[in-house]
């Protein structure tokens, strides 16, 4: 499973890192998100799916 954050769409709501803190890191400057690694470890996949589902901007996409 791979995860991507569209930097054009992300507005720094921070819900993804709240839900999946091991998989998303936030910019210190404005809180916009990026994946820690593109490939998601099996243990984190459920949380990453939930993060994608919860993103208000629908900026997170997943490749299963």
């Amino acid at each position, binding site marked *: 499973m791979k995860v991507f954050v569209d930097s054009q769409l992300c507005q720094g709501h*921070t819900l993804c890192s709240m839900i999946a803190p091991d998989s998303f890191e936030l910019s210190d400057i404005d*809180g916009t998100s990026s994946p820690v690694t593109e490939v998601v470890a099996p243990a984190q996949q459920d949380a990453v799916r*939930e993060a994608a589902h919860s993103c*208000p*901007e629908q900026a997170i996409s997943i490749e299963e």
Partner: protein
Amino acid sequence: MVAGSGRKKNRYHFDRHTPEYRLQFEKTTEEMQAKCPMAWTETYDGHWVAAGSKEVFELARCPVVSNDHDINGERSGYQGITIPKARRASVVRGGILEMDDPEHRTYRNVLNPYLSPAAVKRWEPFVDEIVRASLDEKIEDGRIDFVDDLANIVPAVLTLAMMGIELKKWAIYSEPAHASVYTPEHSPDADRVAEMNRQMGIDLLTNMLEIKENPRPGMVNALLQLRIEGQPAPDMEILGNLGLIIGGGFDTTTALTAHALEWLSEHPDQRELLSREREVLLNPATEEFLRFYTPAPGDGRTFAEDIEVEGTQFKEGERLWISWAMANRDPSVFDEPNTIVLDRKGNRHFSFGIGVHRCVGSNVARSVFKSMVTAVLDRMPDYRCDPEGTEHYETVGVIQGMKHLPATFTPGPRLGPGLDETLDKLQRICDEQELARPITERKEAAVID
């Protein structure tokens, strides 16, 4: 709803400034989402209303939907984010919330490093200390008003600290910031509120001039240091942004906290659960309270071009109300939308807005809310709100807030000095540690000695 013809065929009488709108919010929302998630209303010279999640999502992120408020009639004449145009909003533009890109981005980039998650995290010990002192003022009495004695104080003190304004002045700012939201312009109290607003404006201006002469860390200084093509930002735009920081930072967090504490009082089993399992529940519960109570219920916009969105044609110059509050109850996104589910999944709420105007203070709001709620759960675990003394805003057209939320609880011991002494100490810490510097200049958390 009335079915007409043409572009405005879905008509709905929508007046969010009436007490009935607050009382019938769920019914209105259900009706609009079922029949006309995009409606035309004749109220306030006519405007569109986006009530469905999909419609709100598309329009709030649409590049030709404008936030601009052209106060002096120099560009488009657009009226910014209020519908109808508020009298008090006709002198100063509402900062970044009434700007479009690229202007909006120029100012927002200045504020972000003060308000990012990492920037706000540094203030947590400072916030906890204001909360501690506020509760200590009441802990021995067994009685508190959660609005007056807690939720009005903490956001105000923190916001001033971040701006670089003296903490002990919080009341000069707090009272008018709340009262001007819930006092209608025809109210007998309107003159008194206007006078308080004037005093706040004078203090803000005085601070601006002081900081211009002798820079000290904080968002006031950041805006003063901004250069646009080599020139300082106009004073009126700086004032507008400072007004937005105060308006956005004070009443909204108060509203969220009061509503959450009221609900938790009515649901003691859920309160115990939240307290016990806060490690997992506090984050989703915070988002759920945000979704359900949507402190800032929506924003006005203006179409800057003719455009078709989700099957409706809009004309340049037409006004639009984007309802975050109604979108947050859309059953196509949220199961049981009118129920609070503390561990709700897929909580894609729009309470901080969406698109480039996402609430710049969202991280402050969450952090302050969590500090206040957890401290109450720890120190007043058996509190009961008094419905007799509880006072909600009569209308929720601007902020869905509360004036008073009195409660009783089993008294407990004080943990430290009261509010005034604590604010003196926090002021010293603020100055010595230069807490109001941006995250780019200071990474360390506040140390409360």
